[in-house]
């Protein structure tokens, strides 16, 4: 399976070479797991120590793609490893028995393997790596709608399909809007697409000015769209445009009215007849016009706005931005086009009007500034539903950009529809109200389309340099040491020494059978070193565990180097199944010292141990047996350990 990386031409053969960290304190299981993973062509690092694994993980977070770990390990809790892996966003798979499955999953394991694990189970684990990478990829790209470029989308077919559709949609919209634009420069790139295809009319300052003029001329209650349209005499403007704008304007005025009522003293606003309202409006507007000279440096931040009339501001927000209040924007033209003409505008207004303006500020850009939605970024989406607008300040931004973008516009008497295709301020910059957004308008055109920086988050990158799947092999013991007890870790005792001792014909000194007490076993375990052990126990070892110390023929011993000569021929007795090992052992464990057993075994010629002895026709053995016979009197209690043949000599 191939997994194309972002960089063209670099084809990684994922999951080949996937880097797995295998952790298990059981060497048997670990070795088998390693081999299975190697068979799957993964790159394997194994360790028996959980601590070491943690070290490796922490040392380099990018060293592994996947962790497989046992959960019950002596040196550290397997779940700690799991948690660390999760922190690093690594998929961790538990490898234990069935009972640990739930625990593993609850601790966050992405999967579990039950011992013994089969090859085919391991052949699929790579999908966890892919899943994780997709997730982190999506997370990094961000919550704003990011699109996979079409070339990338092949990699994650399920995920990208939806996004691909969006790309197509917005692409179409872009095209159609582009056709309609005959004003401003670049279009807004937007992945947000409404499915609007018709061109949006942007109510620029000039346009609105004309509108207002027309309305005033007609009188508000007489202002019908048709007439307004005629008066405005704007090419391309439709009656519908005007109608909707008028509706919003009326709403705006109503809002103003309400706002005024909240702040006006009763006597000042005893009545609410529309004419008074209109006058107030006009007055307000006139006041606004009077304050044409806006301080160039005045920037009103959103916080400032809210400070002015925070409660009103927020109340408008709550009620939804459906007020179509619209400040005279004509005066803005003469402004210095500071970043926030509206803001500064606000600051100069008398308090009463300021309230109104606040509302206007918040609402007008939304409705009256009809930026082509299809081109807008996600921010633009907010324009669709005024009621959803969470932040009034955002409007200020749009105002800002709007205001600033109008610098290039001729003053009032423009006949062109101001299609504000250049508003692209992304949502996340709403908070930075103070920023002059002149530059932003065009440059932000591409902002929503954050370019996909390749599949840096996908495993492909991690495969770098790992294609040489060098096997990380442990120090596997050479074959001729297979079954060689000196590999055994416990008690440091070396049966090999014993048997070599045997073959060397050195039964050693006193062959006492120590009192076979339970405690004796432990004492023996602790106190014995190689020498002592050999002296005391080698014979017993040889007899009791003769079958363990299985001497092998030939030099190239599979199990034992130093074994007694054994016939090369196939001994029939070997082939017969051991049926009476039970008998042998029952004799062994009936309470006699184990030395007796071997003697009996010798006598009875039982296949299990007997054939060994038969095979080991060593002179040494004769000596040993003789000495053992002497010890028949030494009947002691048989400890638990002794019953296993662990008496007097430490476990091999």
């Amino acid at each position, binding site marked *: 399976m191939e997994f194309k990386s972002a960089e063209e031409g670099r084809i990684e053969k994922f999951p080949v070479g996937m880097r797995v960290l295998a952790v298990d304190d059981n060497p048997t*299981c670990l070795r088998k797991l390693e081999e299975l993973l190697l068979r799957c062509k993964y790159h394997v690092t194994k360790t028996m120590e959980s601590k070491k694994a943690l070290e490796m993980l922490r040392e380099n977070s990018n060293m592994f793609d996947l962790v497989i770990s046992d959960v019950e390990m*002596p040196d550290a809790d397997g779940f700690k490893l799991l948690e660390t892996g999760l922190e690093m966003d690594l998929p961790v798979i538990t490898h234990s028995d069935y009972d640990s499955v739930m625990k593993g999953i609850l601790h966050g394991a992405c999967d579990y393997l039950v*011992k013994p694990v089969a090859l085919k189970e391991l052949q699929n684990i790579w999908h966890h790596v892919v899943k994780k990478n997709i997730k982190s990829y999506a997370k990094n790209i961000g919550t704003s709608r990011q699109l996979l470029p079409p070339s990338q989308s092949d990699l994650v077919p399920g995920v990208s399909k939806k996004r691909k559709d969006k790309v197509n949609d917005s692409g179409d919209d872009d095209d159609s809007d582009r056709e309609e634009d005959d004003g401003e420069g670049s279009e807004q790139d937007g992945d947000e697409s409404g499915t609007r295809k018709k061109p949006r009319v942007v109510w620029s300052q000039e346009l609105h000015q004309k509108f207002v003029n027309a309305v005033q001329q007609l009188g508000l209650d007489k202002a019908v769209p048709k007439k307004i349209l005629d008066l405005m005499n704007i090419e391309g403007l439709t009656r519908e445009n005007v109608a909707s704008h008028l509706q919003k304007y009326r709403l705006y005025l109503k809002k103003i009215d309400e706002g005024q009522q909240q702040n006006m003293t009763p006597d000042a606003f005893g009545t609410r007849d529309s004419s008074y309202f209109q006058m107030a409006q006009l007055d307000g507007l006139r006041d606004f016009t009077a304050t044409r000279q806006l301080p160039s440096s005045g920037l009103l931040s959103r916080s400032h706005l809210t400070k002015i009339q925070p409660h009103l501001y927020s109340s408008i927000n709550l009620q939804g931005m459906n007020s179509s209040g619209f400040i005279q924007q004509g005066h803005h033209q003469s402004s210095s086009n500071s970043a926030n003409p509206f803001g500064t505008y606000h600051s100069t207004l008398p308090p009463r009007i300021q309230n109104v303006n606040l509302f206007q500020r918040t609402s007008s850009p939304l409705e009256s500034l009809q930026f082509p939605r299809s081109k807008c970024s996600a921010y633009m989406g907010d324009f669709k539903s005024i009621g959803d607008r969470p932040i009034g300040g955002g409007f200020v931004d749009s105002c800002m950009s709007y205001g600033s973008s109008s610098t290039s516009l001729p003053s009032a008497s423009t006949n062109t529809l101001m299609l504000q295709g250049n508003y692209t301020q992304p949502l996340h910059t709403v908070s930075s109200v103070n920023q002059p957004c002149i530059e932003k308008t065009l440059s932000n055109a591409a902002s929503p389309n954050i370019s996909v920086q390749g599949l840096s988050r996908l495993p492909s990158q991690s495969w770098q340099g790992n294609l040489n799947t060098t096997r990380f092999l442990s120090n596997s013991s050479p074959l001729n040491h297979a*079954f060689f007890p000196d590999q055994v870790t416990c008690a440091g005792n070396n049966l090999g020494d014993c048997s070599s001792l045997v073959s060397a014909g050195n039964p050693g000194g006193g062959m006492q059978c120590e009192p076979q007490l339970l405690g004796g*076993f432990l004492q023996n375990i602790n106190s014995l070193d190689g020498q002592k052990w050999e002296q005391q126990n080698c014979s017993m070892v040889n007899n009791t565990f003769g*079958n363990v110390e299985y001497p092998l023929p030939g030099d190239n011993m599979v199990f034992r180097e130093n074994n007694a000569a054994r016939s090369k021929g196939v001994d029939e007795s070997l082939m017969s199944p*051991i049926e009476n090992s039970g008998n042998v052992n029952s004799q062994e464990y009936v309470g006699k010292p184990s030395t007796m057993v071997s003697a009996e075994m010798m006598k009875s010629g039982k296949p299990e141990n007997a054939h060994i002895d038969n095979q080991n026709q060593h002179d040494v053995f004769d000596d040993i047996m003789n000495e053992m016979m002497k010890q028949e009197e030494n009947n002691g209690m048989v400890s638990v350990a002794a019953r296993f043949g662990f008496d007097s000599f430490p476990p091999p």
Partner: protein
Amino acid sequence: MDTLIAQLQRQFRDYTISLYHQGFLDDQFTELKKLQDECSPDFVAEVVTLFFEDCEKLISNMARALDQTGNVDFKLVGSSVHQLKGSSSSVGAKRVKGLCVTLKECCDSQNFEGCVRCLQQVDIEYKTLKAKLQDLFNLEQQIVQAGGRIPQVDI
């Protein structure tokens, strides 16, 4: 006319089958054999060696724990037998694994005598298996040395 190689091969096959039929080995052992190839020619022997070492170590641990009369650490016994169960199942030591299950139960119920008895049996069982596998490997060796090929035995 039965050549030595053919004879050996037949014995190898028969012995292998008998081990399976008597429950000494199960399909996991077959899996082990499948993992052995040119890249890891001694894989089975290696893993089996590790297993028997495991057995010795864990059984001694358990014996030691059980030796502490009046203060038997059943938890230790339990974790040891858990380990042993894992490794025996991994290599396909069927009888050993079965006994481990029983031993685990005894341990969970803190049945001292039961644990001791079970442990004995585990000990016997693994040694038996060890002997048998040694025989099997020896047969393989003999076949190879005689110039023959180790037959693939399908159970």
